Each structure stands twice: as C-alpha cells, then as structure tokens.
C-alpha cells in the first residue's frame, strides 16, 4: 500500500514509510529499559537463511490509510516487559500522530531478547 498523500495549494506531501519507521525507532529508544531496536544478531548460515530484515521496524499502510507498525526490541534485564511494551506503544503512537497527523491502527511490539542493562 502506498503512503498517504496530503494535497496542499502548492502540491502534494507524501510521507515515506521509512520516515514513520525512523520516528517509531527514536520514540522507542526514548523509553527507559529499551536496550535497542532490533533483535539478537544472527551469525553464519542463519543470517543468510532467516527472514529478510528481521531486525527492522516494519511499517505498512492499510486500505483505510491507517498505519500499522511492528517494532522488534531488546529490553534490559530487570524491567517489567508488559509495562515497557505498553510505554513503547504509547510513545510511538503519540510521536507518530503528533509529527505526521496519520492515524495509527495498531503497534505490535516484538520483544526479541533480554540483555543486561
């Protein structure tokens, strides 16, 4: 699905999926307890055979021009996972809506690993 286009008097404004991914990434890293966006690094043949870009934030637009975001994260040891995930979702929703005026359908947080903080 193509990103939403906003018409103005001078032309059109399109926001690329990568922009939303960047905002989501920065908003995620704002939350205390998030070590990084992504997952455990795969090595050897697994990195070759496993899914394409499994460590990236995936953004897609629905038919109703709503945004669906999937965020893989690594959380620091000692934090309450549901609370961190909820805070990530809230912050990402807030920042994306504030910066782009797009409406969010859902934000999926995938906790990939836990590492020592």
């Amino acid at each position, binding site marked *: 699905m193509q990103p939403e286009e906003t018409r103005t008097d001078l032309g059109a404004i399109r926001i690329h999926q990568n922009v939303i991914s960047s905002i989501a990434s920065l908003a995620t890293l704002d939350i205390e307890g998030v070590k990084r966006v992504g*997952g*455990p690094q795969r090595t050897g043949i*697994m990195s*070759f*055979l*496993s*899914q*394409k870009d*499994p460590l990236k934030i995936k953004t897609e637009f629905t038919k109703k021009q709503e945004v669906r*975001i999937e965020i893989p994260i690594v*959380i620091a*040891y000692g*934090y*309450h*996972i*549901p*609370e961190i*995930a*909820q805070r990530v*979702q*809230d912050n990402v*929703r807030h920042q994306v809506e504030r910066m782009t005026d797009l409406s*969010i359908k*859902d*934000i*999926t*947080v*995938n*906790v*990939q*690993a*836990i*590492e*020592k903080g």
Partner: protein
Amino acid sequence: MRIFTIIAITFYAAVITILGTVMIIISLNLVSPQMISDVLLYTLEGVNARIIIGLTGGVLILVSISFAQLIFGKFQREKTIAFITPSGEVTIALSAVEDLIRRLVGIIPEIKELRPDVKATKKGIEVEVNIVLRAETNIPELTSRLQDIIKSKIQEVVGTDEDVFIKIHVIKIITIDERDKKRKEPEEKPAIPFGGYGKI
C-alpha cells in the same frame, strides 16, 4: 500468502515431482543409457541450451533459498508469547524468556550452569531447565526454590496469568576437587636457562 510464495512452492513441488518421476523411470529401466547420453550431448552442444540450463539452475537456487526463508520465518513467528494491549499486540520471543531465566544463575550461587528451553503450549508456558550444580548443594531444596523463582520471575516480568510448568533436570554435579582444580590450577612457568645467574 504472497503470490511469489505460491509460485515458488508450486515451482518447487513441480521440479521435485519431475525429478522423482525421472528417477522412477530410470529405476524401471524404461530409458536406455544411450537415450540419456543423447539428451546430455544435445544439451551440451548448443550454447542456447547451456544458457537455459544455467539459468534454470540459478532460478532453482533462488527458489530453494526463498523456500528456506519461508520455513525459517514461520518457525520464528511461532516461537512467541503474545498478548493484546489497547494500542496493539505485544509478542515476546521465547528466546527472550530463556535469556531472562539464564540471568538467574547470578542469584543462586549453588548453580554453576543453567540451560533453559521454553515452549509455549496450549496448557501454558513449559520451561525445561538443565542445571549443573555444586557438590554441597541440597538438591530438593534448591530445585524447589529454583522452580518458585523461575515461575514468579516469568509471571512478574512477562506479566501473563498463564500457568508455568517447570521441569528441572540436574545434568551434572561438580565436586569440590573438580571446581578447585579448574580454579587453582598452578601455571607452571617455563624455566629460564641461566635465570638465576648473577643472583647471590
């Protein structure tokens, strides 16, 4: 399912079926060696035929890789614990829960090594832990304590009300001698020739 995936699966199945059929035909002795040799000679003679064979080989490799990606991706997606929040879904990789359990080694000094394996089943979360203990440990007391700690830690950190079943398997008990041997193995320094020369 994406169209490319469907095409890839169909193509792969077709190729494997053709290969199987050819092997059956060969085993039934329906083709003479001369015929096989003629086909091979024909394909090797023409440049176009060789290009086609090369390209087919390349396509087959690409299809195999995408097939493997599909399988590995599916396996990865299945290995999660998921719950819904008002903003969307949260999935926790089982390897993340395993990381969490592995960190517990530091809390209990009697445990030398801990290898967890977490599975999410319909009944709940199943945890299988292989441990290496130190010799002077009271095993029933320690395993019971470990089960309680793992259970409460998973329920506290992951935040699920699901049942947690914990199986503990003591795979090795390290004796004090063995431990001390590893810890205090004196390094034998090589003797330096004429090392003491000049000392009074």
